[in-house]
């Protein structure tokens, strides 16, 4: 007993001294993380409160607080509005001492936040948005783009499906910048892989009924119907495609931006056979499964999507850079450090961050299982093929990023 007490005391003293010696200089004596997400609209499930959970897990798993750096997490809802998001970012940086913003699952908001982050020289871990402009013409020395982008999705899905035999395409495109960009990038990928685009139709966003567009898609006799849309538009098109017997009639559906939570909302009978690209799936290996088992109870039973995984992984890497520099004040310097170190985390495996801010990691072409193939809750995907990290993303020279010499 006495021995244990003595060793405990020794440990406590060592710990106290340990804290003293590993002293790093954090602004305001605390490393403050801002999780800016969509808590009330389209992306609540794939990001939202789950992103905050992922951030907390990242802090825990990195052990950064044990090494003497105090970390605080704040969160807010940008409601998918660029002005709300940019106002929150500005206020966080100006008067609340936030050092890094993570998540932001909306490209419009992300572009605004990237600009403000550059002006205030902080760090933006863009683990939620999709626009490939964030590492293209809108790239900054303070932004790191994780998880996915429109080019990768278009290229991954387009090339893989075309090579697999789906060489004629018809697009149903949401008629706004994001949808058009997806269609443009996928068309390029399909044509490069030797396929042909037979036609397409532009649909206003937030449209509920796709029957007449699906009819046109059926009439085109294309082997693949590409859904260049997102959120509610995607789930509605898939649901109605099942109703019109599209898949039973021999055509394949290619979702260009689909998340685990979308499949959950559709249910396997409707979503089966859908093919698309993701960069993370919870059932891939023991590390991802362990993460999911810890994550789900904290997020109302929802299993982690790639956006949640992106928050976790990007923060882990950020912490490494901050600890190496022993400071959190100079955003551009931290990002430079992040680019100089290879990334390695339990969820995405090994990768790296390019000079234009693009994080490179493997991508996976997945297909939704049939109800018979699924063995348990959230057991939705089978991984069809893997695209290696150096081929998954847009080549460095093609982006038009001014940081690339």
């Amino acid at each position, binding site marked *: 007993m006495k021995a244990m007490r003595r060793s405990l005391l020794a440990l406590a003293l060592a710990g106290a001294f340990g804290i003293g010696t590993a002293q790093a200089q954090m602004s305001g004596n605390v490393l403050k993380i801002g999780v800016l*997400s*969509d*808590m*009330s609209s389209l992306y*609540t499930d794939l990001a939202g409160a789950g992103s905050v959970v992922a951030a907390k897990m990242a802090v825990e798993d990195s052990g950064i607080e044990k090494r003497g750096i105090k970390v605080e997490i*704040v*969160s*807010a*809802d940008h*409601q998918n*509005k*660029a*002005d*709300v998001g*940019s*106002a*929150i970012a*500005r*206020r966080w940086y*100006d*008067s609340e001492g936030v050092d890094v913003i993570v998540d932001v699952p*909306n*490209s*419009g908001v992300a*572009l*605004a936040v990237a*600009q403000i982050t550059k002006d205030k020289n902080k760090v933006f871990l863009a683990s939620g948005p999709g*626009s490939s402009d964030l590492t293209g013409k*809108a790239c900054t020395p303070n932004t790191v783009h994780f998880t996915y982008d429109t080019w990768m999705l278009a290229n991954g899905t387009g090339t893989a499906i075309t090579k697999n035999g789906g060489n004629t395409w018809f697009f149903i495109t949401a*008629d*706004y*910048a*994001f949808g058009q960009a997806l269609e443009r990038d996928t068309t390029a990928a399909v044509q490069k892989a030797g396929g042909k685009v037979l036609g397409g139709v532009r649909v*206003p*966003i937030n449209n509920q009924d796709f029957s007449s567009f699906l009819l046109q898609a059926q009439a085109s006799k294309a082997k693949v119907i590409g859904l260049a849309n997102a959120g509610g538009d995607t789930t509605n098109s898939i649901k109605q495609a099942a109703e019109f017997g599209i898949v039973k009639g021999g055509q394949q559906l290619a979702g260009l931006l689909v998340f685990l939570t979308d499949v959950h909302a559709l249910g396997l009978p409707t979503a089966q056979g859908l093919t698309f690209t993701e960069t993370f799936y919870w059932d891939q290996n023991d590390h991802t499964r362990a993460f999911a088992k810890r994550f789900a109870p904290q997020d109302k039973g929802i299993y982690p999507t790639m956006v949640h995984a992106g928050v976790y992984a990007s923060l882990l890497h950020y912490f490494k850079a901050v600890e190496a520099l022993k400071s959190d004040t100079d955003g551009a310097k931290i990002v430079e450090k992040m680019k100089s170190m290879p990334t390695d985390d339990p969820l995405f495996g090994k990768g790296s961050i390019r000079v234009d801010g693009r994080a490179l990691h493997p991508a996976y072409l997945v297909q939704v299982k049939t109800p018979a193939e699924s063995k348990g809750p959230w057991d939705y995907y089978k991984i069809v093929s893997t695209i290696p990290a150096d081929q998954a993303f847009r080549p460095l020279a093609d982006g038009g990023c001014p940081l690339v010499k």
Partner: protein
Amino acid sequence: MAAIAERAAIRTAARNQFLVPTLVMVVALAVAPFAGVYPVFIEKALCFALFACAFNLLLGFGGLLSFGHAMFLGTAGYVAAHAAKVWGVTPEIAILAGTAASAALGAVVGALAIRRQGIYFAMITLAIAQMMYFFYVQAPFTHGEDGIQAVPRGHLFGLIDLGDPLAMYYTVLVVFVAAFALIHRIIHSPFGQVLKSIRENEPRAISLGYDADRYKLLAFVLSATLAGLAGALKAIVFQLASLTDVYWTMSGEVVLMTLLGGMGTIFGPVVGAFVIVTLENYLAGFGEWVTIITGVIFVVCVLAFRRGIVGELAAWWARRR
């Protein structure tokens, strides 16, 4: 003699009732940044306060409920943002351009909508606002969902750098106070009196020889122009113009601000705007509850609080005398 003196006394009292609170408001706003209040927050509240005041001019004093006022806020924002970013003009020209665009739009929409009354008038404004929204979603210059980003603040008159937070703040304050004074002038002018009479009893006003349609149209255009001024100013302050500003829920928000603050009072919309902006700020951390609380405020206001904050205060003050 006594009657004239009495009337003069009433006029002075009425003027004091306006001047004193206004002075208090202006002074408070002028020193706020030094008192530790975050300036951008007040700038946002002022832009919305101006928007609500413009809306109140039409609703509270003109008696016309427009469901599409967001189109004026947003159009001016887009034009101003485009002018500042793509044409590279100085901020005051950008703001003028935005305001002019909204005025023109107001004239066209007003000419169409004035022909009908009541709920039909509201429906026409809503329908046109929706058409404008879909147009902006697709028009290339707005960049759709991304909006016009990184709008430069520039140098006011080529001299004052609006990148400096204090310079931007006082610019917004000056514009707001000037517009506020203008609205007050309009309300208390003969034009304003005729407008109020049309609101109370249109047939009687017409029988007195006033061309009701012309007055209503003018009120509509004025309201649209000032709403445009608010939108253009907001685009420069936040350096961004997005689809949120033309979506119909923004039209709903301005109705809420005016209702909450007090329709038909001059300070009501300002108070309402500040309350709503503060609420959204404070609740941003509890994102999911913002819409619910907004809804609750709507319901409570309509059921039990129809005169709004300023209206209830004024009634209480009058009872005390």
